């Protein structure tokens, strides 16, 4: 007798929910979790700078952080592909 948690026995709504979650996970995280984390860090630092320092500091820093994230991920990708 199949377990109730097996995909074939789950109700349609649960399967759709799992598929939806899996799609967004693959789409946003996938095999580059460092880029997802970097995005959260970039947005966090940007909102801090914009609110606590100045908008000039925020717009000047944001692209630098994006570039740093790209370079770090490419360097990691040289090892992992």
């Amino acid at each position, binding site marked *: 007798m199949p377990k109730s948690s097996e995909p074939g026995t789950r109700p349609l709504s649960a399967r759709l929910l799992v598929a939806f979650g899996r799609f967004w996970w693959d789409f946003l995280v996938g095999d580059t979790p460092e880029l*997802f984390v970097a995005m959260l860090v970039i947005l966090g630092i940007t909102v801090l700078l*914009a609110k606590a320092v100045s908008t000039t500091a925020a717009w000047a820093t944001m692209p630098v952080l994006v570039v740093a994230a790209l370079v770090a991920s*490419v360097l990691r*990708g040289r090892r992992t592909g």
Partner: protein
Amino acid sequence: MTSSAIVLVVAVFLASSVEMVEALTIVVAAGVSRGWRSTFQGVAAALAVLGVLVAALGPAIVHWVPIDSLRVVVGAILLVFGLQWLRKAVLRATGYKDKHDEDAIFAEHVAEMQAKAPAASGRDSVGFAVAFKGVFLEGLEVVIIVLTLGTTDHNLGLAALAAGAAALIVGAIGVVVAKQLAGVPENAMKMGVGLMLVSFGTFWSGEGLGVHWPGKDLAIPVLVGVYAAVAFIVVRAVGAQRARQLHGPDQPPGVSHAQVV
């Protein structure tokens, strides 16, 4: 037309073209090995579902989601997605990742589908399903790009038009070249799309978080230029390192334009 609208059209057009080339490989493989009638039915069904998604979700997003929240969420998605494309394009350009070989993928799909038993009569469910899945899954990324860029820039119609134009043009070229999709400079296109998505992502998420960009919309092409320069430098530096690894220290540094394409 504003500078952001121009970048939007180019980004959506290129992204749709890249995804269309990948979908076309699957569609042509399905058509050749399983027959064209069911394949075209699968393509039409997938396009209809994707069209309904854009028509249903687009206006709902614009109507219900506050603009600043929309910009932060959309900007974050574009930032991650664009960085993923850019990273992949850089790694492919420098030889650390294999290029997307449409010829090999085509041969693989044809062999796989020819191994399955042909339909007894009527619609071929394998051809239909493969064509539907190929177009739907590749198209879903385009739908997300159209929805995110189109709704945030208040230009959903323009974004959808650009995607539709890309679908028509790549489709028409596909009819002519059929199995020669490997000739499409996919990596260069992917690099271009990555640059634009990252630029839009930076701009919109910044705006949503309270950043006032100098020059407003004009900041977008400036960001594209800055990121393009960085990507060029990274490709040169990492490519030179790769060449030294493969051929020793005597190899001249840098990579050629042909490698990027």
